[in-house]
């Protein structure tokens, strides 16, 4: 982990924004699963958030562009499905940035919270922090988000749902 080459790559990737939520980077989202060197060849492993997420290909291309711009020539971007992506991998910094952007970050841990029938989490409003909020739809503007409404301040907002 102390390899300065890997730290340098991580720094480059941490400059790659998510195409749909550009306030967070692909590192914040936990999409980057592994950075390693096979000899001189750099291998970056990423995982999709949702199987059908249309941003996955865009993210892969953006990572390639960023690495090329940073001077890397011998590299591969690989995709893995295992272990499956979870919102538990969202960084603390990422959660804070989401909140500032107006998207409520996931509540609790996905590992302990199965999507139980009829069980909806209490999601504080990212604008006024009220917990008087209503889930309008569990399927929002992108696969990773649900649609909520704040009953206190009236704000409609996205909730980055637990997965």
């Amino acid at each position: 982990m102390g390899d300065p080459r890997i730290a340098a790559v991580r720094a480059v990737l941490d400059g790659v924004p998510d195409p749909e939520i550009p306030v967070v980077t692909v590192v914040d989202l936990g999409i980057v699963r592994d950075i390693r060197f096979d000899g001189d060849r750099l291998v970056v492993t990423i995982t999709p958030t949702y199987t059908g997420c249309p941003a996955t290909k865009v993210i892969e291309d953006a990572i390639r562009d960023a690495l090329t711009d940073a001077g890397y020539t011998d590299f591969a971007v690989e995709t893995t499905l295992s272990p499956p992506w979870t919102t538990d991998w969202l960084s603390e910094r990422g959660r804070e940035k989401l909140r500032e952007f107006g998207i409520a970050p996931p509540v609790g841990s996905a590992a302990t919270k199965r999507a139980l029938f009829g069980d909806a989490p209490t999601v504080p409003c990212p604008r006024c922090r009220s917990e008087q909020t209503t889930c309008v739809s569990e399927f929002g503007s992108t696969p990773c988000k649900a649609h909520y409404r704040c009953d206190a301040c009236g704000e409609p907002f996205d909730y980055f749902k637990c997965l």
Partner: protein
Amino acid sequence: MATPTSTDARIVALLRLADDALILGHRLSEWCGHGPILEQDIALTNHALDLIGRARALYTYAGELEGAGHDEDWFAYRRDAIHFHNALLVEQPNGDFAQTIARQFFYDRYAQLYYHALTESPDERLAAIAAKSLKEIDYHVRFSSEWVIRLGDGTDESKTRMQRGIDELWRYTGELFAMDELDRAAIERGFAVDAAPLHDAWNTAVDAVLAEATLTRPEDGWMADGGRAGRHTEHLGFILADLQFLQRAYPDATW
């Protein structure tokens, strides 16, 4: 063109799962811009994305195992209806919103049980696809089950429509749990699970939701089948005419 029908049980098993996901995903995508309200329009197209994403992962794997140079697009766009392995349920028309919900409810409850069992597959890659899919399916199950209850235990109009959707599609649910020789061969190689024992759990879950929705469970009677073997209802051809038009008209088109 290479033979479109594989005799490799592993590949057939992957295509059965993938074709279910692609065709149901396509059906749901037909709702885009036609949902009863904006939120549900978005919800149905979200489901479609998940399903098509799942199909892509499975087709890609099937193509790699087959080793004939077929990618996900080839499986989606270049096969005729007789070479599709999806269950008849998923190709049935959208009908009204209630019928779409009934179809989704029956499929989601089956998929949740099936993919859960598939996460135990000794094949790591398939187990990974199953684990990934299962997380999404859990959300789908909640959505379709809640709508069955809301419509069933709703107004006279919504109840009538929900009951009709359940009754219309019931005959297509048996096929989901029927097993044939290819399934059994696939099970031995870790590419399928025995669906027959899952039928009881499915019945229990479905009965509980129907009861809460104050709907009547249909009588178990004659069940349609044939989809797994490529014998489809007339609807699949129309789906493929739409889905495959561009690649049929301009083979290998890219942009």
